[in-house]
């Protein structure tokens, strides 16, 4: 998957998790940009991303990733 494809797939996951078809993410998107993205929703989001891409984040990554860009970096690394 290319970076662009990953961002497109992430848009779908975010729209599904946060119930908002208007959401489009980029590398600098953070929890501050999406109203319902709190610590609980973060876990749901992480699990939804794991299912979509067939990968696993470890707890360290879950609690330390700062923006969508870092999430995409991990996805790319796992896919290699």
């Amino acid at each position: 998957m290319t970076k662009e494809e990953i961002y497109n797939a992430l848009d779908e996951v975010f729209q599904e998790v946060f119930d908002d078809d208007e959401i489009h993410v980029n590398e600098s998107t953070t929890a501050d940009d999406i109203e319902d993205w709190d610590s609980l929703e973060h876990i749901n989001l992480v699990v939804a991303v794991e299912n979509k891409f067939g990968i696993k984040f470890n707890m360290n990554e879950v609690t330390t990733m700062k923006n969508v860009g870092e999430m995409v970096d991990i996805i790319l690394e796992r896919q290699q």
Partner: protein
Amino acid sequence: MRITSFNFFVFLFLSLVVFYIFPKKYRWFALLGISIFFFVFSSSWKLLLYMIFGIVVSYLGSNIIEKKCKNDKSKKIVLFLTLFLIVGELAILKYINIFPATINLFGSLFNLDIYFNTINLLAPLGISYYTLSLIGYVTDVYRTTSKAQTNILKHALFTCYYPLLISGPVVRYNYMQREFFEEKKLDFNNLFIGFTRLIYGLLKKLVIADQLSQVVNAVFSNYNYYTGWYLVVAVILYAIQIYADFSGCMDIVIGASKMYGVNLPENFNSPFFSKNLSEFWRRWHISLGTWGKDYIMYPLLKANIFQKIGKKCKKLFGKKIGKLIPTIISILLLWLFIGLWHGASYKYIFAAGILPWIYLTVGQIVEKPIEKLTEKLHIKTECFSFRLFQSLRTFFFMCVIWLFACSPSLRESIYIIKNIFVNASLLLRNELPVIPILPILFSVTIVFIVDYLNYKNIDVSLKFKEQNLIFKFIVLFAFIITILIYGAYGPGYNPTDFIYGGF
């Protein structure tokens, strides 16, 4: 050794002299010696053995996980074994009484003639706090967030650093490692700021908490006599007391630690200004809350079983409710843990576990409908009056929790609630212990102002640091004089333990 006693000040002064005499590189070693001395002086050599057990087990466990285990399965086995031993020690020393308490509760509920005596095992100072720090550390090594410490003495300092043993905070290894092992220079600013913070903590503890506790105790130990408004006022005073007690203790230990150049994380962030209860708990006993989130709640929510529950619930109840159910279950487990951590009694399981869970769950469910309703009714939410309403509402709900927490038992808290609705003569107030009201009000006002500035993101400690030396000395002097004249200490007072020191 009480950290509010004169002995502690002598100890602090001598330990600082020893600490700064040591070469910079080995000052951490001096801290270890000072901490062991404090521990033994406050409890006994025998109890030190329990602590050494925790240190050795977590040291071996973390190093085996990092260096010897080849795959995730073996790492997991060593992790669980290590956690089992650390938690097992805490469970035996602090929670063994939950079994006789359960049997006695059933006995009294069904009028059975059975009664088991509780066992009083002595637990080492700070075990409830350092056990959580150790669990976090070993888990972090497993998660590769922390490197295992290879020097057992350095690892021992992380466990037994004496300012952390009184009432926490629960600390993270990565953070403390930087604080402990960076070279410490003698810095007058650190000494002054640390000492002022310590004195500010003493003001909270001796002038506010311990003075108010006399009235609170008098009312709650005679709740059939002091009924009605007396009970309401006593609960409000207890709320102020417990905050002054716990946050005062944190000020003392953070201040003392600062004098060695070791910055401890904050445990409070102006909780009484919170808009709602979830914000309150993000600002109250912060280190316990974030620990619970990182080591209990997140792993639970991410676990396969919770994901399966979530999927099933979504099919059965639709997406929104389906998503909510695993969250509610994990919050319940987290709060049951927090309730149990406070003490092996049903009072705490209910007051510090189930009740907060009910609050948060109901809060989550009604949050959106209430938002819509306020919008429909055109209620302004960004003005002072609405913010005041939100803070008072949060305070009221917390007072209900504290009413249960400060009652001798669950059963008696029911009587107390009933007695709130029984009128009592105003004249009874003459029989209450006399406390210095003006100095207490003065101190509470100072705490209120400091907390308000902090809530507005103004770094009070930094602002204080920037002032002229003469002003700083005047403030310090005023605090010391207030404590010496109006503090609850010396003959005629029973020195009171820190409430959270007992958990």
